């Protein structure tokens, strides 16, 4: 499943857009300068982790609520007896379909935005034509890129809160809240896909007097489309989780039911809903990885000169997806007429005029900076824990065989290895199926509200995602050097230390940094359930109708994510 890795990397918001990766800065050329720079980063990272841990209150404040252990135990005990009567199952089923419908329609919208936005932000679009001046072309391209930065920097939940104010409780809220930020990310990935595609057929059509849109349609889209569609399935997988989180803030579906059951602490109900969420998430994961691995094989085949062939699985999935879109909009009663209803516009304009000019509020700028620091600390603690746990799970979760494992061992060992793989994969999928705010709510049984429960909630969820990415990168290791080490008579553990770790470590670090960029955005989500930082402040400001303050906080958040993106890109460059 090379595809995930490719995209996770392409998606990383800071990768230089569309241009070839910038050459590593040639400061202190040669191996010594490189290793000195790496050592510098390592020191800095270590210091950041220590500072963040202290800031998060580890070992300083009392964080554990011992009296909550009993209720946590009750909670887990209830897992064996979820509420399964017909009424509640019907309710769960309905909620499940609603969440699914949000995810489907949100993904569909994001694909439309991504397709058009991707074309308009591709270099192929701006560089063709006979006479347009270079300066104007660059300006157009840069402007199109810049327009997409803001929707990408704002988390789905914030979009959700905004649209809730504008439209009230309406299915369109979830669709827009997922579709807009996902669409901006898709546009970026898709413009890169388009620019990787050979441009000669497209240029030839433009030379024959075709309009740019027609030339795109015939010359550039057909080769790039399968990749876009299979990327769409990856987004769909993410959209299921987003749809659930949006439910928590009031958009309906599984998340909404979860929030209700949490308020009344009905554990058996919570478990029924969680099982439904896990089921949905696993199904989406499975479908998406099926489509994407088929696509990866197709790409491999065409690289090997086997010619391009239609992919039946992709076509079937596409047809099924189209049917799902139709059913989904019927199920949630989507009515896009609300988009141009006068009332929504009135609310929207009212909100924006309330928000302008942004105000710093009573905490002052210093207070805002401090909260930004807290948010940063939360993300660093979260990613540190997730990185360690993810690496621990990744090795057993990787596929056995391929010359690096216990092939020549007995049947028992092989069964043990397979069991370990299935078990750790199952753990990872459960960890990422349950959204971070739900983990945070669970942690609040045994912890006092604060940064730490938020950080741990994010860490648990991120472990699920990161562990899978890392396992895939172990799967994709070149097997030849491992076989060479094995042929010297080295034991499996030696092969692991000398072959697997050195080869996989740089990728692990790259994924860790990439997920750090995602995590800083997700701090908003746990902030919403009271875990501190800028997210909590934003939630307070929005519920107090203090939109001017919320706008400032939002700007601060975008700035913070930008700083994290740039830092992460710099570290990744030095690791590469």
């Amino acid at each position, binding site marked *: 499943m090379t595809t995930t890795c490719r995209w996770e990397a392409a998606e990383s918001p800071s990768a230089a857009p569309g241009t070839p990766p910038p050459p590593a800065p040639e400061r202190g050329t040669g191996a010594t300068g490189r290793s000195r720079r790496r050592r510098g980063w390592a020191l800095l990272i270590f210091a950041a982790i220590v500072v963040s841990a202290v800031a998060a209150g580890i070992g300083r404040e009392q964080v554990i609520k011992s009296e909550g252990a009993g209720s946590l135990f009750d909670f887990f005990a209830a897992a064996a007896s979820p509420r399964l009567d017909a009424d509640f199952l019907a309710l769960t089923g309905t909620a499940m379909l609603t969440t699914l419908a949000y995810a489907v329609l949100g993904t569909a919208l994001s694909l439309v935005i991504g397709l058009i936005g991707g074309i308009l932000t591709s270099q192929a679009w701006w560089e063709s034509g006979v006479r347009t001046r270079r300066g104007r072309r660059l300006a157009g391209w840069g402007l199109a890129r810049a327009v997409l930065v803001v929707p990408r920097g704002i988390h789905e939940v914030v979009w959700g809160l905004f649209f809730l104010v504008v439209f009230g409780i309406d299915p369109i809220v979830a669709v827009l809240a997922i579709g807009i930020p996902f669409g901006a990310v898709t546009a970026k990935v898709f413009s890169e896909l388009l620019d990787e595609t050979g441009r000669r*057929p497209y240029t*030839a*059509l433009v030379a024959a007097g075709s309009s740019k*849109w027609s030339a795109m349609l*015939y010359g550039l889209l057909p*080769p790039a489309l399968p990749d876009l569609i299979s990327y769409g399935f990856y987004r769909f997988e993410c959209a299921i989780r987003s749809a659930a989180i949006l439910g928590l803030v009031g958009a309906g579906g599984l998340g909404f039911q979860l929030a209700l059951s949490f308020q009344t602490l009905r554990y058996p109900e919570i478990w029924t809903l969680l099982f439904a969420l896990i089921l949905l998430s696993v199904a989406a994961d499975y479908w998406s990885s099926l489509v994407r691995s088929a696509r990866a094989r197709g790409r491999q085949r065409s690289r090997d000169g086997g010619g*391009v062939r*239609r992919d039946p699985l992709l076509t079937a999935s596409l047809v099924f997806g189209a049917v799902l879109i139709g059913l989904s909009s019927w199920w949630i009663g989507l009515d896009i007429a609300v988009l141009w209803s006068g009332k929504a516009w009135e609310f929207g304009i009212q909100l924006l005029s309330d928000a302008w000019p942004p105000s710093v509020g009573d905490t002052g700028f210093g207070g805002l900076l401090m909260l930004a620091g807290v948010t940063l600390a939360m993300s660093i603690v979260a990613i540190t824990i997730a990185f360690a746990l993810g690496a621990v799970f990744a090795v057993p979760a990787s596929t056995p065989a391929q010359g690096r494992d216990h092939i020549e061992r007995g049947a028992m060992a092989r069964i043990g290895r397979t069991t370990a793989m299935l078990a750790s994969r199952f753990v990872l999928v459960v960890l990422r199926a349950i959204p971070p705010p739900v983990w945070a709510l669970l942690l609040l049984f045994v912890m006092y509200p604060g940064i730490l429960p938020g950080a741990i909630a994010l860490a648990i969820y991120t472990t699920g995602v990161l562990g899978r990415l890392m396992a895939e990168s172990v799967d994709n290791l070149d097997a030849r050097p491992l076989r060479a080490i094995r042929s010297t008579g080295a034991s499996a553990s030696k092969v692991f230390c000398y072959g697997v770790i050195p080869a996989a470590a740089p990728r692990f670090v790259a994924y860790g940094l990439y997920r750090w960029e995602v995590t800083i955005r997700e701090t908003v989500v746990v902030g919403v359930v009271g875990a501190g930082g800028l997210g909590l402040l934003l939630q307070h400001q929005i519920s107090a109708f203090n939109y001017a303050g919320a706008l400032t906080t939002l700007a601060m958040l975008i700035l913070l994510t930008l700083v994290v993106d740039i830092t992460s890109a710099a570290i990744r460059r030095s690791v590469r």
Partner: protein
Amino acid sequence: MSSPIFALDGVGVSYGKNTALARVDLTVEPGERIAIIGPSGAGKSTLIGVLNGTVAATSGEVTALGCDYRRAPAREIRKSQRRVGTIHQRFDLVEQLRTVHNVNAGRLGSWPFWKAALSLLLPRDVQRVRAALDRVGIGDKLHHRTGDLSGGEQQRVAIARVLVQDPVMILADEPVASIDPARGREIMSLLLELSAEAGVTLLACLHDVDMALGSFERVVGLRAGQIAFDKKRADLTDDEVDALYAFERATEPR
């Protein structure tokens, strides 16, 4: 039709410090068949690019079918481009599409966008496509995926695409360079036949000097971005041709 199809007046193209073409004067009259020869890197492909409007001249005047490429509005330029068909060395077909779509791509300049989009689902003007494919000898490949065809067949698809474009001028950039010599001769004579049949002007860049001297009435020698000679085939001497490649040959053996 007394006005020239192309008129290049002191045309130069440079990329930064590199000069690809310098002070090129060239006039193409309707019905002419011209071969451009010269060593690799002489600027042949750049010249084709200037003629079909994908490469902007950095100096001089380019007039194509009465349209000034440097000043005319984009709409006018597209109108001229529509009447100039180009066949490329590497075919420039979309391998993922069926042959019928790749041929129809030649019509995109005259089709509105909706028709182009619709045609991908329900191919339009199939009769015309079939006639063009029949003419180039692969009428049975209408619904094949283009990527599955052989190199020679793909070049025939590219020619069929130019045929449905119905141009007054065909530009061919090394049309036979990437297929074997026997297929190459077939394709070349097909091109000459087609241009004679329809009275279409033909200008071809060729690496194969014998082919150029054997079949074209007018030969233009290009070297280091400048025109070395521009003569009727009958007036051209072997010495002039040898001189064109002299530098290349002198440096080759090392």
